C-alpha cells in the first residue's frame, strides 16, 4: 500500500470512532436553523460576494500599488541615467556625482556607491551586499525604501532608492479595507441567513402544529395564512382547501351513516315483523307465498335505497367520474319531459317543456337525465292533480340554467336547505313511497357538473333551479406519484424532524382520501 493509502486507512481507523463518539454526544450536530436551505443559500451568497470582493480588491491592489511603484521606479531610472551620464563611465566620476547628490538630496532619497571590495565610496547608505535589480528594503529607522541596484564601473555597485512608505501605507490600507469588507459580508450573511431561517422554520412549525392537530382528529383545524402570498401561503391555501373537502366528505358520510341507520331500520323491522307473524300463524301455503312475495318487494326497496346511496357516494367522491361530453341541456330536458307526459296526464298533471335558446353544455347525458327525472318525479308526487309542472332551459349571460317549477304547495322556507339531505322527508310526505334520496342525488349530479341547485318559492309552488356556472370539479383522485414527489421535496427543503412531520400529515390525508374513494366503490 502506498503511503497516502496507509495514511488514509490510519486516519479512518482513528477518526471514525472519534467522530461517532462526538456525534453521539451531540457535539457535532449542526443547529436546526443552519440546516435549512435558506441558510445554506445565504452562506453560498456570502461566499460568492466575498469572492467577488476579493477579486475586486485584488485588482485595485495590483493596479494602485503597481502605479505608485512604477512612479518611484521611473524616477529612480531617470536619476540613474543622469548620474551615469554625468559620471562619465569611471568610478571616480560617479563618486563625485553621487557625493553631490547625497549632500543636496531631499529627504527620502538614498544613494550608495561601493567599490569592488564592498567599501562605501559615496552616498548616505551603509554598505550593503550588492544585489542587482529592483528591490525593497527596510532601513534601521524603519523606513521602507524602494530602489534599484546595478553594476558600477570597475566592479563597483550603485544603488539608488526612494522612500516608499506611502506605497506601504497604500498596501496596508487596501488590505485592511478588504479584510473588513469580507468579514462584514460574512457576518451579515450569517445574521441574515439565520434570521431568514428562523422565520422559515417558524412558518413550517405553524403548519406542522396545525397538521398534528388535524391528524389527531380535529378536522376543523386550518393552517393560518400570513397574508404575504408567498409559497408558504400557497401551501397553506392548498392544504386548507384539501381539508375543507375532506371535512365536507366526512361530515356527509357521518350524516348519511346515521340517516341510513334510522331510515332503514323501519322497513327492516316491518319486514321482520311480517316474517315472524307468518311463522307464528302457520298460514296456508298460498298465504306464505304472499308473505314471501311482499318480503321480496321490501328487500328490493331496501336494495334500491342502497344502490341510490352508493351512486350518490360515488358521485360525491369523484371516483371514476363519467366523461363530460358536449350535449344540449334543453334536449335532455325535453327527452325526459316527453317520457313522463303519459304519467303526468294519467295523474291529472300538466307537464310542459320549454327551451328558450340552445344550451350547449359538457355533461353526462345519463346523469343529467336522471337529475331531471328525479325533479319531475318529485313534482308529480308531491303536488295534487291539476298542478302545472314546467321544465325550462335557457342560456342566460353565458350560463346554462334549468328550472323545474310547479304551482303546488311548495316547500316551506325553513325546510328548503335541509331537503337535500339524504333521507330527508317533509312532514307532509312522510308516508309517500320513495327513498328520500331524490334531491340528494340531484345535488350530487349538479355538483359533479359544477352546477348549483337551489330551491325557492315559485309564488306559488316550488322552483328548483340548476345553474351551471362553475367549472366541473376536477377529480380528487389521490395520486401516489404526486404524494411521493411532494414528500421528496419536503425532505430536500426542510430539516429532518419537520420533513418527517409534513410527510406524516400528507400520508394521513392521502390514506383518508383513498379510503373515501374505496368505500364508495362497490365490491365484485
Amino acid at each position, binding site marked *: 500500500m502506498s503511503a497516502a493509502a496507509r495514511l488514509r486507512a490510519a486516519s479512518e481507523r482513528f477518526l471514525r470512532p472519534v467522530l461517532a463518539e462526538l456525534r453521539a454526544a451531540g457535539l457535532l450536530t449542526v443547529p436546526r436553523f443552519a440546516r435549512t436551505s435558506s441558510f445554506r443559500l445565504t452562506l453560498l451568497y456570502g461566499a460568492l460576494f466575498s469572492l467577488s470582493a476579493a477579486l475586486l480588491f485584488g485588482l485595485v491592489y495590483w493596479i494602485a500599488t503597481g502605479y505608485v511603484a512604477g512612479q518611484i521606479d521611473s524616477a529612480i531610472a531617470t536619476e540613474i541615467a543622469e548620474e551615469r551620464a554625468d559620471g562619465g563611465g569611471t568610478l571616480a566620476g560617479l563618486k563625485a556625482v553621487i557625493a553631490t547628490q547625497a549632500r543636496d538630496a531631499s529627504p527620502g532619497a538614498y544613494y550608495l556607491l561601493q567599490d569592488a571590495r564592498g567599501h562605501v565610496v559615496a552616498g548616505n547608505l551603509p554598505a550593503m551586499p550588492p544585489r542587482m535589480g529592483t528591490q525593497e528594503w527596510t532601513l534601521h529607522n524603519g523606513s521602507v525604501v524602494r530602489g534599484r541596484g546595478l553594476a558600477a564601473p570597475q566592479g563597483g555597485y550603485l544603488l539608488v532608492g526612494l522612500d516608499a512608505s506611502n506605497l506601504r501605507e497604500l498596501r496596508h490600507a487596501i488590505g485592511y479595507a478588504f479584510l473588513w469588507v469580507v468579514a462584514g459580508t460574512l457576518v451579515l450573511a450569517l445574521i441574515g441567513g439565520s434570521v431568514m431561517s428562523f422565520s422559515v422554520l417558524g412558518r413550517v412549525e405553524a403548519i406542522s402544529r396545525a397538521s398534528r392537530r388535524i391528524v389527531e382528529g380535529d378536522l376543523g383545524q386550518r393552517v393560518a395564512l400570513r397574508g404575504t402570498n408567498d409559497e408558504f401561503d400557497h401551501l397553506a391555501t392548498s392544504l386548507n382547501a384539501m381539508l375543507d373537502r375532506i371535512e365536507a366528505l366526512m361530515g356527509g358520510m357521518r350524516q348519511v351513516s346515521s340517516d341510513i341507520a334510522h331510515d332503514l331500520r323501519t322497513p327492516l323491522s316491518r319486514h321482520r315483523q311480517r316474517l315472524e307473524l307468518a311463522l307464528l300463524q302457520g298460514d296456508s301455503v298460498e298465504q306464505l307465498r304472499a308473505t314471501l312475495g311482499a318480503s321480496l318487494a321490501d328487500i328490493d326497496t331496501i336494495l334500491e335505497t342502497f344502490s341510490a346511496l352508493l351512486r350518490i357516494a360515488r358521485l360525491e367522491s369523484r371516483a*371514476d367520474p363519467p366523461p363530460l361530453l358536449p350535449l344540449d341541456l334543453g334536449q335532455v330536458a325535453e327527452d325526459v319531459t316527453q317520457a313522463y307526459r303519459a304519467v303526468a296526464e294519467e295523474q291529472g298533471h300538466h307537464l310542459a317543456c320549454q327551451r328558450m335558446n340552445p344550451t350547449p353544455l359538457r355533461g353526462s347525458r*345519463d346523469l343529467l337525465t336522471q337529475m331531471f327525472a328525479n325533479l319531475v318525479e318529485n313534482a308529480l308526487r308531491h303536488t295534487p292533480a291539476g298542478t302545472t309542472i314546467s321544465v325550462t332551459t335557457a342560456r342566460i349571460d353565458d350560463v346554462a340554467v334549468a328550472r323545474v317549477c310547479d304551482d303546488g304547495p311548495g316547500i316551506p322556507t325553513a325546510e328548503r336547505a335541509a331537503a337535500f339531505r339524504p333521507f330527508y322527508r317533509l312532514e307532509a310526505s312522510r308516508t309517500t313511497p320513495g327513498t328520500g334520496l331524490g334531491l340528494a342525488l340531484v345535488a350530487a349530479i349538479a355538483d359533479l357538473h359544477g352546477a348549483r341547485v337551489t330551491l325557492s318559492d315559485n309564488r306559488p309552488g316550488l322552483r328548483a333551479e340548476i345553474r351551471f356556472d362553475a367549472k366541473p370539479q376536477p377529480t380528487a383522485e389521490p395520486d401516489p406519484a404526486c404524494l411521493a414527489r411532494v414528500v421528496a421535496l419536503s425532505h430536500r427543503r426542510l430539516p429532518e424532524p419537520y420533513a418527517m412531520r409534513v410527510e406524516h400529515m400528507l400520508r394521513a390525508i392521502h390514506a383518508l382520501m383513498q379510503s373515501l374513494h374505496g368505500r364508495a366503490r*362497490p365490491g365484485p
Partner: protein
Amino acid sequence: MRILLVEDDRETADYALQGLTREGHSLRVATDGREALLLASCEDWDLLVVDRMLPHLDGLALVRMLRAGGTTTPALFLTALGEVNDRVAGLQAGGDDYLVKPFALAELAARVEALGRRAQRQVPPETVLSVGDIEIDLLTHLARRRGEPLDLQERELRILEYLMRNAGRVVTRTMLLESIWGFHFTPRTNLVESNISRLRTKLGQESDAGPIETVRGLGYRLHVRGR
C-alpha cells in the same frame, strides 16, 4: 338454448343456473376466465353470460379476446359495477347487454331470450315489420293495424317496434326503459305502464290481455297471433 355461464361466486352461479334451467335452457358453468375462454373457443354456444370480476382473466378481457378471435356469440355481462363508465366499457369490449347485480331472475331470463333470438334470426334487411295484424313500415315510420293507419308518436312507435321485434317473449320494464328512453335507473313512477297504456289505447286494445299482454311481475309481451 345452450348457455355458458361464467361466474366465480358459487351462490350467484346457482341462482342463475336454477333460474335459467327452469326456462328450459341448458347451462354449463365456468368459474374462471381462462376455463371459459377454452370452453367458449372449443364449443358452440348460443349465449354467454359473463361476470365481469373473474379470477385469472376478467370478463371484459375474455369477451374482447373471443371477439378478436371471431366469435359472434352474444354476450351478456353480469356485474355489480353499474355506472356509466362501466356500462360503456362492457359494450365496447364486445358485450351485447349489461345487467347490474342484484338482478331479478325474470330480468335475466327475459334478456337471455331477447339476446338468444337476436342471433338466431336471419337478418335480411326488412322494410316492413309485421306481427299478427300489426305492421310497421320502417321507411315511412307508419304503423297499421288490420290495414288501418295508427296515429303514433315517435316514442310509441319505438315501443311497438321493440315489442314486435321481441314478439312472443317477455320484455321487462327495465329493458324498455333502457332501449326506448335510455334511462339507466329505476324511475319511482310507473312511467312504462303509462306509456304502454297509451299505446294500447291507440291500438284499440281494451284489456290487459292482448295483443300487448301484461305479464305480472315480469313485463309485457306482444302476442304473435294477435287478434
